[in-house]
Every structure is written in structure tokens, then in C-alpha cells.
């Protein structure tokens, strides 16, 4: 007989509690959750990030709708619980439902406190607590200009930053003389204010609002000192009030919040409270870490697990306002029990204060460089004896190594993610047990980094440290994909040594974890096979990424692009007309000249792709391939008065000579007619600068996420030499680079000197060129090939009933 567990509230603390309960006992409870917001459980802390434009409402869900279904939770949203009938153990909702319970959790959280001033009910006066509030603020920012945030605490400053990011003119009103007086002392608060003012935030300190004025919508604020300020939006960030009305009416013991014991039990033994609505030892917490600890204590109790219960928390805060790094924990103000170590560097705008009582750290305030926060906080929590340390060594990490050494120094019990209570030990264990290699994977498995996200660098350090250790200990390298520990070079060597003929054989013989590989090794092995045996190996369409399989770039909505070849970026009137006619015939949504100097047709439906190519009768531009994309050329000596050579002609010859052949990654080339470099060749995989008596050859450049300037190879006298060396270079790249590696990182890895030495040795050129030509001979133009093959054409068809 399952116990009926009902929870009033669908927020972070409550749902975390339910997760912990399910972890311990997924069978004994029939769970119903009643939430008055129309959303599944979302990360309320991230609302600041949504407002600041760093993420979206969709991306902050912690538990999506499916999670409730998968865990058989009966979820009611947009519905409010209005009464608890303790005698009959029934919860009544505003939609007249009566829900019976055996155990009841109240997790109603808080609401933003709206100052009860005249005018506080005007339009444009809101709190900052929910998705609805956030969306209202974003909407208002589009239409109005001036905003006032009342409250210079953590939340108010985050709101102000977000509104500035949205283009509003923002004043922050605070009743105290310094900001964030709950977390910062005067010195740190002043540094913070200066930095925020530099960001455009304006402050009205020691002002108390008397009235909010306006007709239907707010127009101005009046302060008690008689001054006033015009505004279109007022955000109240003066605190939160626990939602306890329902508990009070049910005659549970309520102070500021619902009183609970160490096991989160209220004055009624079948009713619990957790989160911001609960009061433990006189404190109602408003930060997430203690609330998650409460959830764990409650889950233990409800599932009958032995535990000490919740003991209360020492709080630490990290502020997420851009550019302002601060950390505070424990005591922040000196008293006659404490001695302080203070470093205040006014020039660098950094401040560090540590309060000590009886040789133990009891308080920390850091501003400007908060990277030491967690280390010091761990020492505070552990009540570490610092009598052996000198002042400077307490203040600074052991080495200047920063995160790396911090991670080494941490013990397994040290907390890495304060918001979710995840220790270093848990993270390391997950990395090792589940073979995790990325931050996202660690977050998925342990929740570290899932709330405010500030611990991400530390989690990444632990990853590097953990995987790095493994490297040292057993001399293992990172494999070419998750199917194998072998590197690319080892795999290729084995293919040649053992004469393996197909990727399937490779996976079998070399013991890949998955018989049919994965999205990384399938295209990679297909590439290596064809590169090693171009005349014998049959290309496997099913192993090509969608772009290459369909000979067109897939767009975000599943449509494709159609981009014909345009050698040297030159076209003819006839071709332009034909492209135009095809664009019209198929109602192409977007016609655009691409960065690679050709015309692209975008938004093409899959079924139309082959028909359009047939109508065009043109060669594919290979705008989607891991092969030569194009050779960008300037006009050159054909028309330009500065052109030293026929750059355009050379560019076209190169494009024709090198196109279609698979390479480890896309290649972009360029030929420019003089050092003015209009064709921007010095960030290309292969770039030519024409000069009076010849051609300068450059290689290994990249203009993408990490810009790399080319290295100079040599200067030659003739076009033939340019083209010959291009072929040799392309073949060298084909044979040596990892699939997915552009020439820039490849050159960095193997050394530009090695590439130069190899290509400048006369005797290396002919064999490389021969291999290249052999490979080139096996390639047929993409669309000529598809259009004559019914099986290939069928890939574009959609079967309809």
C-alpha cells in the first residue's frame, strides 16, 4: 500500500527533496505536486542570467515535464493550494480539488516583498522572483527607458545589471549607506559600488521611498527627504517574505516562517516544511545551498534513513554581476572576538579580509579576486587551525598555479559546488566510474555547476587533473573517440600494418567498443580508409555526416542550401539568369552571396534539392564538405592597376586542380595580386601573395574561432610550382592530420618547420603529387554522380501516404 505524499510547491527546494526521496525509495510513495506557476521546476537563480541575456527561459528548466511523467508524479500546475484540513488530512486547491495525504510537504517558498507604499499597485511596479516577472521586465525594457530598482542587495544589483544590458537607464535606491551590507563590509562595498558605477549603474543611497506616483502606470518615485525621480519601471528587490499563510491558517507553528526541527518536521508530525518557507533555529534561509541540505535531511527522515538531520548552515555568497568578483562567508564585521588579516590594494581595486578567532577562520570578505573563496571557506567550515600559517600564506594559495593547485590541495570531502553540495570526491568518482570527459557530462551526472555555474572552472580543473593523473599513471592517451583508446595515428598504423580493408574490419579487429562505431569514428574511418586506399575503397554514404551525405548544408530547420561552383568568384550573365530562374521556380527563401565568393540558395526543401541541381546543370560548390571549399581571389592584373600577376587566373586553376578530394577538414585558400592582400590570404590554409617576380607561398592560417596567421613556405617563380606544391601540401595534410583537424592546429602540433622541411625537399614532392593525382582521379563531380544514380536520388525523397 503506497503512502500518499503530497507537496505544496513545485520549486527548487521541494523538487530537490522529491529527487532525494526517489533516490532512496522509489516504490513507497504516490507523489502529487501542486505548483501555482505554469512551469515545471526551473532554476530561479538563473533568472538573473535570463534578464542579462546570457540564457533563455527554455534553458533554465531543472526538471522538464517528462521527468514528472517518468517518475509517476501527479503534477498540477497553475493551481494553488488554499487550505490544509489537518484533521482529515486533505489539501484543498483553488480549483476545488480535494487531495488526500498521508504525509505533506510544504515547500511554498517566498514571494518578493512589495513595500506597502501608496502607488505600489500601479502598473510597472514588480518584484523579481518568477519567470513572469522576468518576462515583464524584458518587455518593459523594449518600450520604456527609465528604471529604478529599490534594494541594493544581491538581487537588486543583479536586476539592475540585467536592465542595463537591456538598454534601460537604471538607478538603484538603497536605504543603507553601503551596498550589500549583509555580505560586505564598508571597504569591499565601496569597491563594488565604484565598479558598478563604471558599468553605468547609478546609486541613490540612504534614501527611503515614501510614495510611488502615477496615473495608471508608475511615473515617478518620491522619497522621504522630499526629492523625487522620474521612472517607468520600479523593481522591488527589498527582500522576500516566506509564503506561510496556508500554514498559519492550518494553525501550524509559524514565526517568520514555518517552524521545523532538525528533521524538517513542523508542529504536526505528518507535515514537513522545506526551503525558504521553513524556519530552522530561528533562521529562514534565502540561498540555495542550505535549502538543498534541508531537502536531504527531510528525504532521509521520510524514507526512514538514520541521520543527524539538518544542523543549520554557514553561508557563503558569490556575486554574479559581470566584472565584479566577490566572495563572502561567515562573519563579515570585526568584533572584539576577532582579529583581521586585511590586504587592501586600492590601485588594483582588490580587497581581502579574513577574520580569525582562536586561530580559526570565522569570516571571509574578498573583492576583486575571489578565486580563493572556496579554499578559504573550506578551511572555515573545517575549522582548520591556522596557527602554523603566516599571514601571507593564509591569504594566498600555496603556489601561483591558481585553479590547478587549488584542486590538488583539495581533499575528497571539500565542497566544489556550494549550491548543490557536491564534493570533489563525488566528482572524481563520477569521472572515473562513468568515463566522463566534459564539464557538461559531470554536470549531468553530479549536478555540479547546475545552479549558479560559478564552479565551472574548478570542475574543469578537476577533469584535467583527474584525466591527467590517469595519463601519468598508466601512460594512456586520449583515444580517437569514445569507442577506443587508440589514437588516430595508432589506428592508421594498424590499418596499414594489418592490411585492414573496411571500417567494419577496423572496428572488429581493433576491438572498438561499439560494433558500428559512433558519430565521430564513422566519418573518420571512412575518411582514413579512402585516403589510404583511394582506388579500392568504396565510399560509405551512411558514414558521412548529413552535409556531405546530402551534398548540401543542413540548416537549423532541416532545409538545405544549394551552392553551385563559381570558380574565382566569377560568373556569367547566363549563369546568373539560370540561378535566378531556379531560385524563382522553387521559391527559395534566401539568395545570398557567401563568404567564399559564390551565390548560395538557402531554405531549400530536401525533396527539391536534386531537382534544383538538375535544373541548374552546374557543378557543386562543395560548400559543405571536408575538402577544398574555394580559392578566394582578387581581380589581379586583369584589371587592377596594382596587380602584379594574374591572381584570378591562378586562383581558378588551383580551385580546379584541388577540388573534390577529401581532406581531414575543410580547406580555404586564397590568391592575392599584391601585398595589399585584398583576398585576405594570410589566414588561409594555403595562401599566395603575388609579387613582381613570382609568388609567395603561405600555409597553416585560419580565420575562425582561433585566428592564426600563415607561416611563409617559400617564394617561387611560376604558377606551375604554386600548383605542384599545393598538391603536395594537400596530400601531406591528408596523410598526417587527424580527421576534424584544420591545418592551423595541425601545423601547430607537428611544427611549421617540419612542414617546410618536408615540402622544400625536392625528392618528397613527386611521390606526394602522384598520390594526390591518383586520389583525385577517383572523384566524380557530386551532382553528376547523384543525378545518374537512382539509389542516391531516393535519399532526398520523402515517402508520403
Amino acid at each position, binding site marked *: 500500500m503506497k503512502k500518499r505524499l503530497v507537496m505544496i510547491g513545485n520549486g527548487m527546494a521541494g523538487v530537490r527533496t522529491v529527487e532525494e526521496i526517489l533516490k532512496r525509495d522509489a516504490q513507497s510513495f504516490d507523489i502529487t505536486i501542486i505548483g501555482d506557476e505554469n512551469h515545471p521546476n526551473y532554476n530561479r537563480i538563473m533568472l538573473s542570467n535570463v534578464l542579462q541575456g546570457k540564457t533563455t527561459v527554455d534553458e533554465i528548466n531543472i526538471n*522538464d515535464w517528462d521527468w514528472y511523467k517518468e517518475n509517476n508524479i501527479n503534477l498540477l500546475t497553475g493551481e494553488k493550494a488554499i487550505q490544509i484540513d489537518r484533521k482529515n488530512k486533505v489539501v484543498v486547491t483553488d480549483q476545488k480539488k480535494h487531495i488526500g495525504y498521508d504525509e505533506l510537504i510544504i515547500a511554498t517558498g517566498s514571494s518578493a516583498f512589495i513595500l506597502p507604499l501608496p502607488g505600489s499597485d500601479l502598473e510597472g511596479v514588480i518584484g523579481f522572483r518568477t519567470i513572469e516577472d522576468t518576462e515583464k521586465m524584458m518587455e518593459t525594457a523594449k518600450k520604456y527607458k527609465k528604471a529604478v530598482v529599490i534594494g541594493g542587495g544581491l538581487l537588486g544589483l543583479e536586476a539592475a545589471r540585467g536592465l542595463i544590458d537591456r538598454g534601460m537607464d537604471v538607478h538603484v535606491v538603497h536605504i543603507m549607506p553601503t551596498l550589500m551590507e549583509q555580505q560586505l563590509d564598508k571597504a569591499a562595498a565601496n569597491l563594488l559600488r565604484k565598479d558598478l558605477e563604471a558599468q553605468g549603474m547609478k546609486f541613490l543611497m540612504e534614501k527611503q521611498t515614501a510614495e510611488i506616483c502615477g496615473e495608471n502606470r508608475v511615473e515617478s518615485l518620491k522619497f522621504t527627504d522630499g526629492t523625487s525621480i522620474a521612472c517607468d519601471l520600479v523593481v522591488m528587490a527589498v527582500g522576500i517574505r516566506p509564503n506561510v499563510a496556508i500554514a498559519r491558517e492550518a494553525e501550524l507553528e509559524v514565526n517568520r516562517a514555518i517552524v521545523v526541527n532538525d528533521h524538517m518536521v513542523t508542529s504536526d508530525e505528518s507535515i514537513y516544511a522545506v526551503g525558504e518557507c521553513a524556519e530552522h533555529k530561528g533562521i529562514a534561509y534565502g540561498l540555495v545551498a542550505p535549502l538543498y541540505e534541508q531537502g536531504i535531511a527531510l528525504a532521509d527522515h521520510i524514507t526512514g534513513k538514520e541521520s543527524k538531520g539538518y544542523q543549520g548552515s554557514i553561508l557563503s555568497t558569490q556575486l554574479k554581476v559581470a566584472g565584479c568578483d566577490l566572495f563572502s562567508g561567515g562573519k563579515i564585521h570585526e568584533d572584539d572576538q576577532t582579529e583581521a588579516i586585511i590586504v587592501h590594494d586600492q590601485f588594483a581595486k582588490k580587497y581581502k579580509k579574513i577574520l580569525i578567532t582562536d586561530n580559526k577562520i570565522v569570516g571571509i570578505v574578498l573583492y576583486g579576486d575571489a578565486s580563493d573563496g572556496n579554499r578559504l571557506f573550506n578551511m572555515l567550515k573545517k575549522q582548520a587551525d591556522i596557527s602554523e600559517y603566516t599571514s601571507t600564506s593564509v591569504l594566498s594559495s600555496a603556489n601561483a598555479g591558481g585553479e590547478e593547485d587549488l584542486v590538488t590541495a583539495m581533499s575528497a570531502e571539500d565542497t566544489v559546488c556550494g549550491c548543490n553540495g557536491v564534493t570533489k570526491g563525488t566528482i572524481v568518482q563520477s569521472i572515473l566510474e562513468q568515463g566522463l570527459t566534459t564539464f557538461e557530462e559531470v554536470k*549531468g551526472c553530479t549536478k555540479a555547476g547546475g545552479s549558479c555555474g560559478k564552479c565551472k572552472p574548478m570542475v574543469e580543473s578537476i577533469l584535467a587533473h583527474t584525466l591527467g593523473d590517469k595519463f601519468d599513471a598508466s601512460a594512456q592517451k586520449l583515444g580517437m573517440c569514445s569507442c577506443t583508446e587508440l589514437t588516430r595515428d595508432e589506428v592508421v598504423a594498424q590499418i596499414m600494418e594489418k592490411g585492414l580493408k573496411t571500417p567494419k574490419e577496423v572496428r572488429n579487429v581493433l576491438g572498438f567498443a561499439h560494433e*558500428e562505431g559512433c558519430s565521430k569514428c564513422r566519418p573518420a574511418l571512412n575518411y582514413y580508409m579512402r585516403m589510404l586506399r583511394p582506388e579500392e575503397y568504396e565510399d560509405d554514404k551512411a558514414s558521412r555526416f548529413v552535409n556531405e551525405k546530402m551534398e548540401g548544408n543542413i540548416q537549423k*530547420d532541416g532545409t538545405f542550401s544549394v551552392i553551385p561552383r563559381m570558380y574565382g568568384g566569377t560568373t556569367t550573365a547566363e549563369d546568373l539568369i539560370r540561378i535566378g530562374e531556379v531560385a524563382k521556380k522553387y521559391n527559395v527563401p534566401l539568395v545570398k552571396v557567401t563568404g567564399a565568393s559564390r551565390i548560395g540558395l538557402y531554405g531549400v526543401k*530536401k525533396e527539391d534539392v536534386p531537382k534544383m541541381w538538375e535544373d541548374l546543370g552546374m557543378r557543386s560548390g562543395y560548400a559543405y564538405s571536408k575538402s577544398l571549399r574555394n580559392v578566394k581571389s582578387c581581380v589581379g592584373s586583369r584589371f587592377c592597376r596594382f596587380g602584379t600577376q594574374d591572381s584570378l587566373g591562378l586562383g581558378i586553376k588551383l580551385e580546379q586542380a584541388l577540388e573534390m578530394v577529401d581532406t581531414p577538414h575543410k580547406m580555404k585558400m586564397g590568391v592575392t595580386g599584391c601585398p595589399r592582400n585584398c583576398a585576405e590570404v594570410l589566414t588561409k590554409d594555403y595562401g599566395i601573395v603575388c609579387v613582381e617576380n613570382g609568388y609567395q607561398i603561405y600555409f597553416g592560417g585560419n580565420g575562425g574561432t582561433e585566428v592564426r596567421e600563415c607561416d611563409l613556405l617559400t617564394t617561387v617563380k611560376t604558377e606551375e610550382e604554386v600548383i605542384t606544391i599545393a598538391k603536395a601540401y594537400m596530400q601531406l595534410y591528408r596523410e598526417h592530420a587527424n580527421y576534424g583537424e584544420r591545418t592551423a592546429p595541425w601545423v601547430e602540433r607537428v611544427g611549421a618547420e617540419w612542414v617546410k622541411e618536408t615540402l622544400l625537399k625536392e625528392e618528397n614532392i613527386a611521390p606526394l603529387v602522384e598520390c594526390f593525382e591518383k586520389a583525385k582521379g577517383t572523384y566524380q563531380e557530386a551532382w553528376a554522380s547523384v543525378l545518374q544514380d537512382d539509389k542516391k536520388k531516393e535519399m532526398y525523397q520523402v515517402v508520403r501516404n
Partner: protein
Amino acid sequence: MNTTKERVKVMKLADLPKQIGKEVMINGKSIALFHLTNGDVRAVLNSCPHKNGPLAEGIVSGEFVFCPLYDWKISLVTGEVQKPDNGRVETFETQIIDEYIYVMV
């Protein structure tokens, strides 16, 4: 909440190449159909739970398909998105009768 399912004749098994997904429209739904190397025929909604990527275009490995947009790995048997991502895509039962593929929608 169960509506009665319809069995729809879709295409010849021989016309569905192995390891390359096929988009089929059934009663207005876009469904991705796969013929796995082990002989099974699997069908899922042609829309990745992440950002609606067309799963029919993805690389197929064993009983899994990798979404072509953001590389989410999805089981074609259960529809479950594999860790570290989360989610599930709707699956459809298929039958082979007289060399034709039928899908239950």
C-alpha cells in the same frame, strides 16, 4: 488517453537501405524510418527532443541514431536520449508483412 492505433502501409522493405534513415509522412506526422543492420525496422518521430533536428538524416550506429544538429544520441528501440543529455522521442511500432513495412500510428 489511448486512441486506437492505425496500421499504415508505408513502403517496400527492399526500398529502405540499411543504416540510412528515411523520412516518411504518415497522417501529417513526419516519421523517421530506419532499417538496422541486424534486420530490425525502427520508427521514431522525425524530431529530436532537443531542438527538433531531423533524426532521419543522422548517422546510425547499431540501434542508435545521432541527431545531425547537436549530436544527441538516441535509442531507436526505446526512444531514450542517452546520457549526458535527457529526453525521449516518440517511438512507433513497425511490422513487416509480405515484404512491406507497416507503421502503427
